[in-house]
């Protein structure tokens, strides 16, 4: 086929795609008319616009390479059933609780568990819901109500900025929707905002709503919904200065970061000119006195804009079209797929897997449960190479410690503080980039001593608000030293430990010192792996 013919053929396919693609709204979930879809999605994508997006991708060569997504060679012996459960709990939850591995083994194995976890609404979590409602009442309030109750007084505001990290950790440790908590951790970091502790920023109280109504709400929806929800949320509008961006004096902060950090990836397929043009497109995207999104035409830069090779019309619709273009762009699929695979599989994710996941993302317009499933049920996920190959982040380490010890928790404040000291304060990342999800970011000479101390303090009762119950130790008390250490290794680590760790454990077990054994294990190199 000649080059010209190929081009013509591609064009026909694109036209056909465009004709079929006429959603009711760009940001509604068109598969089931999800009532939770943002109400603001008024703009309908015309076939012409849709076509332009596809041509844009085609020109950028972005659709090439999709088909050569084969699986690569899996190295090493298969994981046995028990190891598979351990891998699933290490990667898809914040780590096993005592007895959880056996429980999953005895009720259908890891796949049954994972399938249920992929549908979080199917899991009864009413105990936690009650706890959350009682401990963190703002999770059920509107922003204006939160403002009424908490914004005026300094101590009330402190409740919010101590309470938000507290709630994040509490849910991570105790929710039965274990996978949801991991996913939420990912998106919270991806669409990062911070929660200032000062007096002047409304983010002190809008951030808690952002957690509920952007991150948690759409974690199992479509990517474009979460993108749209974040773009129109007062916390994001304020955080990246979109609220201040006006005609002729536009602010580039959000326009740059939405492309660099939220969708396309740094320097991937856009220029500095595109940053300026998107800034103009989004002028007027603001929130009103009730903290509701309201496009303000008086702030909007008049005239059409030329962005990413397309002409974007003036007005609110132009902004929706731009965000929709970003959400469905092949580079976005690639960028998000890579990040998700890094998070769930390996710091250096297998290329073939990334390609397959990116394709699922792209073909489903970012239908997130389908994207997650493409990762979880891949051979790469359950392979020997990727078994216990990730280094826990500070947050993952602390929460997994609380889970492994079956800790009773009254308050997460001290734990949140330690996590902050380890460099990962919750809702306080210094940059909109979020934290880097690679071992190198967390494994310095020195930082392991802090984890070591946390395990030690937790066991000694020196982590305020968290205690290891006597029932934890009771399981080991009557055992012989050799069985004692073996059982504790199986409960906390799952597999084996290093020789040095075993020796230390043996000497503590010989004295039946279960507290010391537990401290050693929590602070050991093996427990830092997941």
């Amino acid at each position, binding site marked *: 086929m000649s080059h010209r013919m190929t081009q013509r053929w591609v064009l026909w396919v694109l036209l056909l795609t465009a004709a079929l693609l006429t959603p009711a709204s760009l940001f509604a979930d068109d598969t089931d008319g999800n009532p939770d879809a943002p109400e603001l999605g008024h703009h309908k994508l015309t076939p012409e616009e849709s076509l332009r997006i596809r041509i844009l991708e085609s020109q950028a060569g972005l659709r090439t390479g999709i088909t050569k997504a084969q699986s690569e060679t899996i*190295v*090493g*012996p298969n994981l046995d059933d028990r190891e598979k459960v351990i891998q699933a709990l290490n990667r898809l939850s914040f780590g096993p609780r005592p007895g959880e591995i056996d429980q999953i083994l005895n009720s259908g194995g890891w796949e049954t568990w994972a399938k249920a976890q992929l549908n979080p609404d199917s899991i009864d979590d009413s105990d936690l819901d009650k706890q959350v409602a009682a401990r963190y009442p703002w999770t059920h309030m509107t922003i204006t109500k939160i403002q009424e109750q908490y914004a005026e007084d300094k101590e009330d505001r402190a409740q919010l900025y101590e309470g938000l990290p507290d709630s994040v950790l509490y849910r991570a440790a105790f929710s039965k929707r274990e996978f949801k908590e991991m996913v939420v951790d990912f998106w919270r970091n991806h669409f990062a905002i911070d929660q200032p502790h000062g007096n002047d920023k409304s983010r002190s109280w809008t951030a808690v709503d952002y957690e509920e109504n952007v991150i948690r709400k759409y974690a199992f929806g479509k990517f474009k919904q979460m993108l749209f929800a974040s773009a129109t949320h007062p916390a994001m509008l304020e955080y990246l*200065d979109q609220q*201040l*961006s*006006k005609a*002729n*004096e*536009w*602010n*580039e902060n959000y326009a*740059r970061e939405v492309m*660099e950090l939220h969708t396309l990836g*740094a*320097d991937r397929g856009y220029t*500095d000119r595109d*940053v300026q043009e998107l800034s103009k497109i989004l002028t007027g995207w603001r929130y009103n006195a009730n903290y509701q999104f309201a496009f303000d035409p008086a702030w909007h830069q008049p005239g059409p804009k030329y962005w990413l090779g397309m002409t974007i019309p003036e007005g609110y619709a132009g902004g929706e079209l731009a965000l929709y273009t970003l959400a469905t762009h092949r580079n976005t699929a690639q960028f998000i797929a890579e990040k998700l695979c*890094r998070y769930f599989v*390996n*710091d*250096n*994710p*297998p290329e073939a897997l990334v390609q397959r996941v990116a394709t699922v993302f792209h073909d489903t317009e970012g239908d997130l449960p389908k994207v997650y499933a493409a990762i979880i049920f891949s051979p790469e996920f359950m392979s*020997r*190479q*990727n*078994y*216990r*190959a*990730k*280094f826990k982040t500070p947050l993952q380490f602390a929460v997994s410690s609380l889970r492994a010890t079956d800790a009773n928790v009254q308050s997460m404040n001290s734990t949140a503080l330690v996590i902050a*000291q*380890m*460099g990962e304060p919750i809702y306080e990342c210094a*940059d909109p980039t979020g934290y880097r999800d*690679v*071992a*190198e970011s*967390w*494994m*310095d*000479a*020195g*930082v*392991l*001593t*802090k984890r*070591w*101390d946390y395990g*030690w303090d937790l066991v000694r009762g020196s982590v305020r608000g968290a205690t290891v119950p006597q029932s934890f130790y009771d399981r080991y008390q009557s055992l012989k030293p050799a069985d004692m250490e073996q059982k504790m290794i199986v409960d906390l680590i799952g*597999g084996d430990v*290093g*020789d*040095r760790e075993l020796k230390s454990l043996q000497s503590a077990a010989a004295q039946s010192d279960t507290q010391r054994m537990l401290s050693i294990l929590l*602070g*050991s*190199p*093996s427990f830092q*792996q997941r």
Partner: protein
Amino acid sequence: MSQSRRDFLKASGLVIMAGAAGYLSTDQFVRGQFANYGATHPGATADSRQRPTLVTIFLRGGADALNALVPYGDPLYYKYRTHIALYPNAQGKNGAVGVIPLRGSSYWGMNAGMAPLTPLIEQGVLMPFMNVGSIDGTRSHFSAQDNMERASLSHSGVTSGWLNRYLEATKKPYDAPLRGLTAQNLVPRALRGEYPVLAGNNRTEQMDLFEDLYNPKNLVNMTARDGATEERGSQLGDTDYKPEEHALTSDMERDVIALSGSNSVERIKALEKAEATPTNAQYPRGGLGDQLRTIAKVIKANVGLEVAQADYGGWDHHSDEGGAGGKHAKMLGELSANLVAFNADLGSHMDRTLVLVMTEFGRTVADNGASGTDHGRGGFMIAMGNMINAKQPISGVWKGMEDLDSGRFLPVHTDFRAVFAESLTRLFHVDPFKTGILPAYRAGASDFLNFMNQLPEQA
């Protein structure tokens, strides 16, 4: 590390850091962690190591050059800065003096928040630069900071930090344990790489047990474990069994973690000893002061500290940057008070200590509608030390406010790597080009700004 393990790492694609994003490979990381740096030489007395020290202060977020070093004699400056301009007398929005002349210059001034620096400037130990930056055009914070700390360009394949490469290039079999240091919770990119550097905010009261658990002797068992996995493989009845594929990832990862821990033990002990040194100045309260106080203690303890970095974040003023007495002025005030304290604290140690203040890029020449500025290109730096050669009030190439890049930014006339190269050459007497500390950077001494004098070679 046995050959099979190393091959396995490469074959399996197991890396601690992702290649594409420019992170270290496990292989590099492991080599660094395995090296015997910091071991005490049988005959050496560690306390006699007086070395020159380079201290970098990174202002994260892209500090606004034109709101720090102000061409107040240029009418164009006031044309571009309609909301946050600084005036040499009490005018402007809140009627305060916003800018003070730099060494009597009627053209150059500095933000009045930096007034504490005046004596240092008069003594000639402090030198600001303008129009410094990266030839890489990225205006992403992440990429620009990363480029500057790696002293490289985007997508160059260089993964380690430039200060770490200095340590690696000049290492000896028995190095002082604290040749590199940061007094923070985590090591910044500039100090990351093969050479182990301590993130000095970490302690434990259970050091003995920790030391026992994170012991290099664990490595003796690695060969044994390689053997053990071979055995295990045959037990699994795998007929196509290849031993080199069976060195378990999880074991490998554990060893890397154990080594990382063991590397910290000696360094933490050395730091604790050095921290007994008294402080001779009053630092401002806050993170930067705490970091500099610790770094100064280690320098004064003469334990061989050569490179250290302190970080000061929050300079991304898209809004509310402020004119006279504004937010930016206050932050510059904190920075200045810290430089003054550090200089006083070190005393004669400043003869061999160079401080470099840097930021990833400058900002738009015009202010935006929110009394802030957006990401730009050319920026500023400040150097401080007794070896500074202060002939003019300001260093770097300046062609006036009409000299703009894309009509919106200060251009980059000096590659920041020229400043790094001059610092390394004249402070440590190393050739930063031949040693590969500044890879793929084609430059020479003729590119130097000559902002400092060569330090006499030490015995």
